[in-house]
Each structure stands twice: as C-alpha cells, then as structure tokens.
C-alpha cells in the first residue's frame, strides 16, 4: 500500500493543502455488482441441490423403514448352533446304564380346513374308510358347518398318511410334531407315567408329562438350557424286566389280585427296580377308572401309593430299637405266654410258641406277644420318634408325581394298645417303599437313606444315624435266622445269604373290622445279610395257594418263594458274586463286614 509522505516544516503557503490529522477514509475499491439474475439462478440451483439431497436422504430412510415395517421379524441366521443342537422339545429318559426308557420320534398329525375342501362329503367318507373310528355322518356335518379348522388325528402312520394323500382332498393337511415313545412297552410303566400333548399347533406340539417321572420332571425335561441331556434314572432295565416277570408269574401262581416289589440299594437309597402289578403301557395310558376302587386300577402304583398294614415285617424295627436302647440284647428271655390282654383287646400268636423265647426267637418265630411286651418297655413316645426318624409318618420323597399324595395312615392318638399293635405292624399303614426305606436305614449299618429314582453321582454321604452298626449287624443276623430256621425258610438262595422277615396282615374291610380270608402278604429282606447290598420288599394282595395239603395265605408260603426267585434271578444281574462259603454266616463275619464298611 502506498502512503502519502507527510510534509515537513510549517505550512507557509495558504494554498498548500493542509494535511488532515484524521486520515481520510481510503477510497474502497468498488466491485462491480454482478448480474442479479445470475446470482438468483445460482442460489436457486444450490437450494435445489440441497433439497434433492435431503429428499433423497429421507426417501432412503423412509423406504428402509417401510421395508422393515413390512417384513416379518427374523433372527440373524447365524450365531450359535441353537438350531442344530436342540431338535427334541423334550429330553430322553434313560436307565442307569443309559438304555433308553423314553424318547421322541417324529409323527404326523392330520387336520382339516373345510374351506379348502372341494368335496367335504366325499372327504368324510374317505376318512371313515381309512380310520374306522370316524363316523361319516358326524364328520360330514362338521365339514359343512362352516368351521375353519378341525384336528382329526394326533398322529397317524405313514400308510394312513399315504391313504389320506390318495384321497386328493386339498382341505386335509398334515402337521409335523414329535411323539413321546416308550420303546420298552409296559416296562416300568408306573415309574415313567406317560405323556400327552399340551398346546398344539400345526407345526409343533408340546408334550406334557401326565404322571410318574414324566410329570415330576416336566420342566426339567423340557428345559432348553439343558440341550436335551437325558435324565438318568436309577432303574436298571434288565433287573426291572426280571422283577416284573417274576412278580407276574408269582401273582398268577398265588392267584393274587395285585403285587408290588421294590429293590433298593441299601447304602444310597437308589431304587434299582420297582414294580406294581397290574400295570399298563405308558404309550397308551388308560383313562382313570370311573368306577370301582381306585386301588384296583392298573394306574395305581401299589409300591408307592398303596398304604397297607404290612404286619410282622415291622417287628424287626421294634427289636432294633430295643437293642439300640439297651433294653434287651439278642439273648434276653421274653415272656410270651398268652394271650396278652390289654383292656378289651387280647393279643395272640399264630401258634403257641411256649412261655418264653429269646429276643432272637421272638423274631424267628414271629411272636406278636413277645414283640408287644418289648414295645411296652420302649413306650409310645420313643416308638413314635423312632418310626418318625425312619420316615414312616410322612410321604416318601421319591421323585414321582404320585408320591406326595401317599400319606401313611397313623393313629391320631397313641394309647398303649397302639404301641403294642404297631410294634408288629398293625394299626399303621405304610407303602412298600416306606418299608424298604426303613429296612435299608436300619440294616445298612444304621444310617438313614432317602429313596430316590435318580442315579446317584459322586460318593455316598451317610445320612443321620438311626441305630449303631452293631445293632444293625445283630438285626441282620436275626433276619438271617428267620430264613435259616424260621418262617421264611423258602427264601433261601444258595450263595446269597438272604435275611428277611415275613408279614401277613388281614385286610381291613371298608365296612369296619378285618376280612377273614383276604390278606396282604409281605416279605422284606436284605441280601447278602453279612455284607448288605440290596433291600427287597415283595407284597402280594390277597394271595392264596394250595400247598402241603391246605389253603395257605401266610407270607411264608406266598410272598417268600417269589422273593427268593427274585433274588435268584436279580442278584447275578446286579453283579453280585455268590459266596458258597458257610463261614460267611457266622455272626463274627457280620461284625467284620460292618466294621470294614464304615
């Protein structure tokens, strides 16, 4: 920029222009104004461009939103193998060796959409020919009634499906679903229970457990988080088969109307086999009975739901308690002269066993009078608390939907006569499973076990102590003598030293009092007695057999031979090696084995 030089010296010449103190405003360069038309059109162009940009942007967003709103929501196709892993809606049930007890197979359901039908009347006729249980008139009426949808069949065979296809009716459609299958048929029917369809859709159907393990573990089996891992039961298929076969043939032989059997691991409480006859096929579970007593229905699980007065099998519990309390020992002489009178009741023995017996002989001969006297020594309160500690006052905690409903029947008041009768198993009603649990708890060395149908994993933690291991050994020795020289002599199986007690109780009649000619016969035992592994309970409902010249109803002639055959068949399957050494039957061996175990 050029600056004007300031004049030096004074201004003498008046015509000399005075330099102003304030600098003059500089002359700005005048920019010639553009053509306003041009400016306007440029601005317009820019505005249009911006508008187009915005419109395009919003249009894209709007279109995308429209597409999102219009299409169905879809999960991302990848990520996780969820689709590949979970195929079954419901997990399998297996036995302890992993053999399948319950599984699913794909099935086809048939449904109808009458609106799509070309000729509803012919369709109904064709269906009636394929499925004999469908009535032509009923379905013709329904197909023409204007309804939109009908389920026709829950699952049909491939042949039936082909036949329906061949009808060529577009209104008859097939739906895919899974079906619960019990490949072993009737085997362990009471334990498995059965299943039915819950919510159903043409694409899938929910399977719900109805009874037994299926109902108890309904949520567990259908929990997707477990990814179809099977539920492993403590049941052994081969043992269960042998049990059901032997019980069935025994029941026929003894012309009994029902039978129940429980085989329990004495240390863990695992139920290796449990059967109740008559039984049913869980694949086609019968409808609940509408008449007759529910206890006679095939659906009734006698081993768990049936509470019976089981009789003399309770005696060993009384004796074990008296030994534990130190009131008696196995050689103590008990007065068994009878009849024993208590108020207006009198207690008799099956036979007259003489005036005095040792405690061992009270068990061996099964003396009601002797046991009642010992129970009086124990007293009502201690007897109650002992039976309560064995779980005989509440329903069993076994994992069956029916179990919580099976409450034992115990007297509300507990006078001395109750103490006396309950000491030999009358006046208290428990299930065979209760009895098996009590036997296992007393005879395994004296610690309480909880019955379970699930295969145990990990080491066994002994429960609270019920009796000392010595008392347990003495009780087993007494039970062994019942078999070697007492009422259960038919139970002997060479090699497996069975010890057990018989029990025969008259059935209470609904009219009050007891039947003369109907009994519940029970054998409860443990084998091998010197080193207990399993507890077995066999109960027969109303057995009778013509043997040795007269009609027999006592357990020694009915339940005991069955139990013996059962042990003979089952023990080898359980991997128990028979021991033919007579030395194992000495009492010293019982104590050594017990000491080695604990």
């Amino acid at each position, binding site marked *: 920029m050029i600056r004007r030089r300031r004049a030096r010296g004074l201004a003498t010449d008046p015509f000399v222009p005075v330099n102003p103190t304030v600098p003059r405003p500089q002359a700005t360069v005048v920019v010639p104004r553009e053509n306003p038309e041009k400016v306007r059109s440029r601005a317009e162009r820019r505005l249009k461009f911006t508008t187009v940009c915005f419109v395009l942007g919003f249009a894209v967003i709007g279109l995308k939103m429209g597409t999102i709103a219009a299409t169905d929501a879809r999960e991302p196709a990848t990520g996780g193998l969820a*689709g590949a892993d979970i195929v079954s809606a419901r997990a399998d049930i297996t036995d302890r060796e992993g053999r399948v007890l319950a599984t699913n197979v794909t099935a086809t359901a048939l449904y109808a959409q009458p609106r799509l039908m070309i000729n509803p009347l012919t369709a109904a006729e064709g269906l009636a020919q394929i499925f004999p249980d469908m009535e032509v008139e009923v379905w013709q009426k329904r197909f023409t009634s204007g309804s939109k949808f009908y389920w026709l069949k829950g699952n049909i065979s491939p042949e039936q499906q082909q036949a329906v296809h061949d009808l060529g009716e577009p209104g008859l459609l097939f739906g895919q679903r899974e079906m619960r299958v019990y490949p*072993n048929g009737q085997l362990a029917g009471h334990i498995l229970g059965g299943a039915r369809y819950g919510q159903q859709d043409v694409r899938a159907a929910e399977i719900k457990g109805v009874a037994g393990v299926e109902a108890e573990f309904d949520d567990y089996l259908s929990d997707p988080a477990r990814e179809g891992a099977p539920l492993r039961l403590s049941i052994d298929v081969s043992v269960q088969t042998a049990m059901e076969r032997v019980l069935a043939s025994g029941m026929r032989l003894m012309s009994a109307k029902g039978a129940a059997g429980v085989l329990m691991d004495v240390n863990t409480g695992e139920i290796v086999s449990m059967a109740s006859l008559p039984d049913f096929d869980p694949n086609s579970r019968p409808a609940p009975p509408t008449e007759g007593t529910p206890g006679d229905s095939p659906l009734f699980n006698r081993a768990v739901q049936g509470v019976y007065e089981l009789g003399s099998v309770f005696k060993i519990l009384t004796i074990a308690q008296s030994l534990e309390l130190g009131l008696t020992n196995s050689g103590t002489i008990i007065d068994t002269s009878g009849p024993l009178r208590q108020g207006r009741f009198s207690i008799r023995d099956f036979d007259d066993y003489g005036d005095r017996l040792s405690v061992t002989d009270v068990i061996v001969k099964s003396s009601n009078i002797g046991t009642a006297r010992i129970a009086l020594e124990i007293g009502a309160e201690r007897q109650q608390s002992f039976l309560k500690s064995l779980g005989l006052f509440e329903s069993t905690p076994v994992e069956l939907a029916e179990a919580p409903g099976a409450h034992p029947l115990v007297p509300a008041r507990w006078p001395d006569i109750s103490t006396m009768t309950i000491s030999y198993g009358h006046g208290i009603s428990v299930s065979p499973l209760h009895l098996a649990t009590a036997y296992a708890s007393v005879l395994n060395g004296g610690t309480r076990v909880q019955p379970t149908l699930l295969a145990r994993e990990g080491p066994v933690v002994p429960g609270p102590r019920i009796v000392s291991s010595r008392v347990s050994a003495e009780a087993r020795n007494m039970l062994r003598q019942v078999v070697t020289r007492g009422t259960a002599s038919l139970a002997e199986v060479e090699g497996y030293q069975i010890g057990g007690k018989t029990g025969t109780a008259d059935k209470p009649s609904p009219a009050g009092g007891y039947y003369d000619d109907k009994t519940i016969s029970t054998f409860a035992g443990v084998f091998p007695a010197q080193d207990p592994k399993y507890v077995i309970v066999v109960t027969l409902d109303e057995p009778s057999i013509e043997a040795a010249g007269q009609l027999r109803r006592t357990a020694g002639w009915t339940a005991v031979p069955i139990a013996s055959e059962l042990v003979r068949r089952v023990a080898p399957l359980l991997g128990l090696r028979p021991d033919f050494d007579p030395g194992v039957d000495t009492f010293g061996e019982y104590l050594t084995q017990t000491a080695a175990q604990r």
Partner: protein
Amino acid sequence: MRILLYALSVSVVVILAFWAYGEGYETRATERDVARLERTIGARHQELSMLRAEWAYLNRPDRLQELAEMNFETLGLIPLAPDHFALADQVGYPPPAPPALPTPPASPQVWAEGEALEQKIGDVIVMTYRFGADAKPRVISPPTLADDGEQLP
C-alpha cells in the same frame, strides 16, 4: 494437486464400494451355507434320535427274550443264575499247545536221493524215516471206482 487428491479419493471410494459389495455377497452366501448345514445337522440329529428309538425298540427285553427262546437250539441262552458264577481256576481252558517240533527243512536233495533210491528198488516203498516224513508227496493208490460206482479198496 487438488485434482489428483480428488481422483484418488474417488477411486478409493469406488474400490472400497466394490470390496464392501463383494464382502456383503460373500457373507450372505456363507450365511446360506451355514443355515443349510444347520438344517442338515438338525435333520441328522432327528434321524439319530429316530434310530436310537428304533434301536431301543428292537432291543426291548420282551423281544430279546422271544428271540432267545426261538434260537434256543443254537444259542442255548437261559437266564443268568447264581450257579453260572465260577472261580477262574474252574474254567476248563484248552490245554496249552505243545511246543512246536523243529521241522527239518525238506531239502530237494533228500527227495532226489529218495527218488533215485526208489528207481533202484522199484515199486516197493520202504518206509524209512527219509521216506516217511520227508518223502515227496505222491499218491500211492488212487481210489478206483468200479463200473457201477462202488468204491473199491
């Protein structure tokens, strides 16, 4: 300079766009593949569970029992009983095989010798040890059949 920069960035955008387009297509193809594989796995699982059910059905105790009874003559299967247990000492193992005798190698020389000897002594076969074990196998008297087919000694 500026034009170069613009050209470069535009070409980079174009290249990236191509790359992203390609990746997108590849991803979708892979997704389809994975979905197909998952469907296959699901179908296989279903088949597997079907086969397991069939296996369990074919191995049900009732059927096995019937099969064992039908084939009792050949198999002789009966239910396991306590007397089927035995000590290992009681098992009737086959007697241990006697130690193999060292067989002298059959030398062609011996056979040649024998043949020469045979030539010498004619049709009479002398069963010496050389002619016994080491003799060249030969048919001494083939069975002759009579006209009616009966075998003659």
